[in-house]
């Protein structure tokens, strides 16, 4: 493995990407399948990607990604499209601020960690803590997700994060949720596509699950509430996007969806005693 590159400042010129990156017409291809550059350390790969962004590339294509972490963290170039072939590592698109990332494979943990805006499309599974603390943007996962997905998502004003999962989600979906929308479509799953403790401690946002959700599966602070007209409008928008992104038919019988919402936006009011003892 090549020495770790930790570039200091934009003026520092390292030779990261010399062998593996080709740039033409504002499009960069970073080919990690070449035997002379693999395996490439994540610091080197991130350095190469930042170079491509500094060159103003509107499209970056990564080939042969093998678990490199923190790809495109804090990437902010508006209109940038990043295609990831292979398997990105943890924290893909952390603090993402605008660009679109499309993963042609599976993603690992913490995809879209604390993402601000942008779009992450995963043509496979994305595992634990996907969309942690996301504040905006959208995450689409064609397959299944793991535990603690969509934890502490929040919304503010017009920015509302959305997370659509085609398959299933495990326990603690939307825990501590303070805003945003999660949809679990449960395609290829006959029973409940979510685990236990759904929405534990949630005090904002909404979760739509296609399939059965029994009250025992809900965490404290979450309730099952009726689906409204505006919910159907939002679900339709998200389903259209999902269908367009993955080119697959999606279920559209809204009668099959259960909506989970917070019991209160003030879960701690009345919990404390402020007496001056």
């Amino acid at each position: 493995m090549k020495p770790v590159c930790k570039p200091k400042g934009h003026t520092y010129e390292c030779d990261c990407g010399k062998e593996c990156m080709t740039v033409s017409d504002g499009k960069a291809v970073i080919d990690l399948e070449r035997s002379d550059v693999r395996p490439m350390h994540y610091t080197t790969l991130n350095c190469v990607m930042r170079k491509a962004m500094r060159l103003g590339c509107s499209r970056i294509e990564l080939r042969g990604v093998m678990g490199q972490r923190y790809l495109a963290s804090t990437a902010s170039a508006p209109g940038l499209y990043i295609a990831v072939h292979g398997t990105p590592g943890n924290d893909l698109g952390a603090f993402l601020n605008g660009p679109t990332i499309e993963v042609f494979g599976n993603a690992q943990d913490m995809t879209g960690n604390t993402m601000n805006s942008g779009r992450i499309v995963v043509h496979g599974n994305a595992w634990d803590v996907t969309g942690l603390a996301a504040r905006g943007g959208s995450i689409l996962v064609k397959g299944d997700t793991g535990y603690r997905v969509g934890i502490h998502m929040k919304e503010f004003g017009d920015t509302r994060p959305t997370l659509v999962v085609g398959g299933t989600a495990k326990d603690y979906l939307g825990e501590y949720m303070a805003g945003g929308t999660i949809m679990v479509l449960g395609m290829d799953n006959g029973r409940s596509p979510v685990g236990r403790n759904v929405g534990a401690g949630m005090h904002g946002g909404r979760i739509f699950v296609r399939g059965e959700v029994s009250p025992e599966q809900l965490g404290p602070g979450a309730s099952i509430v009726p689906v409204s007209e505006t919910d159907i409008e939002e679900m339709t928008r998200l389903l259209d996007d999902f269908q367009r992104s993955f080119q697959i038919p999606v279920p559209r019988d809204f009668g099959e969806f259960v909506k989970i919402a917070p019991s209160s936006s003030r879960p701690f009011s009345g919990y404390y005693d402020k007496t001056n003892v």
Partner: protein
Amino acid sequence: MSDPKITAKRSDHRLPERFVPRIDYDLCRVCKRCINECSYQALEFKGSKVVSAGGCVACGRCIAVCPANCIEIRPVPPQFAPHGNWSERSRRSILAQASSGGVLLSSCGADDPHPAIFDDLLLDAAQVTNPSIDPLREPVETVTYLGRRPGKLEVCDGKVIIREDDTPLIRMDMPLMFGHISLGSISYNAQKALFMAAKELNIVAGSGEGGLHPDFYQYADRICSEVASGRFGIKPEYLKGVAAVEIKIGQGAKPGHGGHLPGEKVTTMISETRMIPRGTDALSPYPHHDIYSIEDLAQLISVLKESTEYRLPVGVKIAAVHNVGAIASGLVRAGADFLTVDGFKGGTGAAPRVIRDHAGLPVEVAIAAVDRRLTQEGLRNRVTVCAGGGIRSSADMIKALALGADVVMVSTAAMIAMGCRVCQQCHRGLCSWGIATQRDDLTDRLDPEVAATRIVRLFQAWNEELKEVLGAMGIDAVESLVGNRDRLRYRGPNPKIAEVMNVKHIGEGWG
């Protein structure tokens, strides 16, 4: 909270007052300024006089504004039958909770009279064999750097080589930084005063977990932004445009506890900087949901370093807990460039009393434990150790440095300089001094320039006192004091504490 199944007719036991404002009617001009200024509504106008209305918290605002100097606040003498075991507070707490069923909330630091170990430490001074230095005539260096050290210097042709991959160090003119106090727990004006003072003093101030108000980016080169479990207000410039980034794992006042900013404090401004809806409780979860191990922490440190392109130091703050030495070792191994240990007397804007008063480790012991463990493992020279939680004076600061901290973190002292009287009502959001409140009429009382000037004066004075002591010890740079426990002696009641801190007892000489 569910109501008890047995429900009797509600009979609240009214608690006796704790403080009563007394007015000298011979002097009172009945200007009623005290009534207008009392945000706790503890004074009222009745008949022709200003009288106590109950609920006084001894914030001292009325005394400060009274033009006739005719008010004094008296603690109410014991109203309970004396008992050596059942203190007044224990009985008041039981009565309050029997009425409310709630978790007792308080603020500021732990207020039970635990003796401070700082007070049991005495400083050394130079005599005959190592002459003392007059800091007014000779230079005594107090500049301190925050960040990861390369461990060794590479010298080539007489010049020190700065390696390209070294994370830059943040220069501070004194070994002191302001702790993390969020916008939300304190007012806009109070936070502005802290940032202005930090800039003037050339030290670093913590942002707290509340995002950074757009107006405050002008001070960004002196701000350490905080990434805590709520991940509030994090955007690229909050990470890239500041002096340093700190991951908050814990806080000395409430180890293991998260943060709850009550919905009534989430005003439009707070909701915009935290990027959360107005009026909802802002919850910082107890743990980070992506951190369940040192390896997970290493990932968050790494992603922050990637995000900031290795251009700023990334630190980790933990509450001082019983296993603090081993945890600190893990933090350094996980890649933290600096670590902050917050002792159990540290302040807070709101914390459950049971945690604030009973959980954690005194910062004195924590510093010594961290310093010893990191030294044993050969890691101490790689990182900056910051320590806070109960630093009340320059003497405490000097003792903390001698015990092994590179930098001390202060918050409460800075707020007292602004006007805080430590009445411990921050969680009610009614601060009459305009510090721990979001009410416009109250925040207007704090002029940030005046407050910043007072903070600057205070810490300039502390720095002079530090130089005086360094000079008296015959030390000409503060770095030579750090971890120099041989210049401390313990005179307290429990020699075991001295042993744990690796400090000699009074009467024991050198060597």
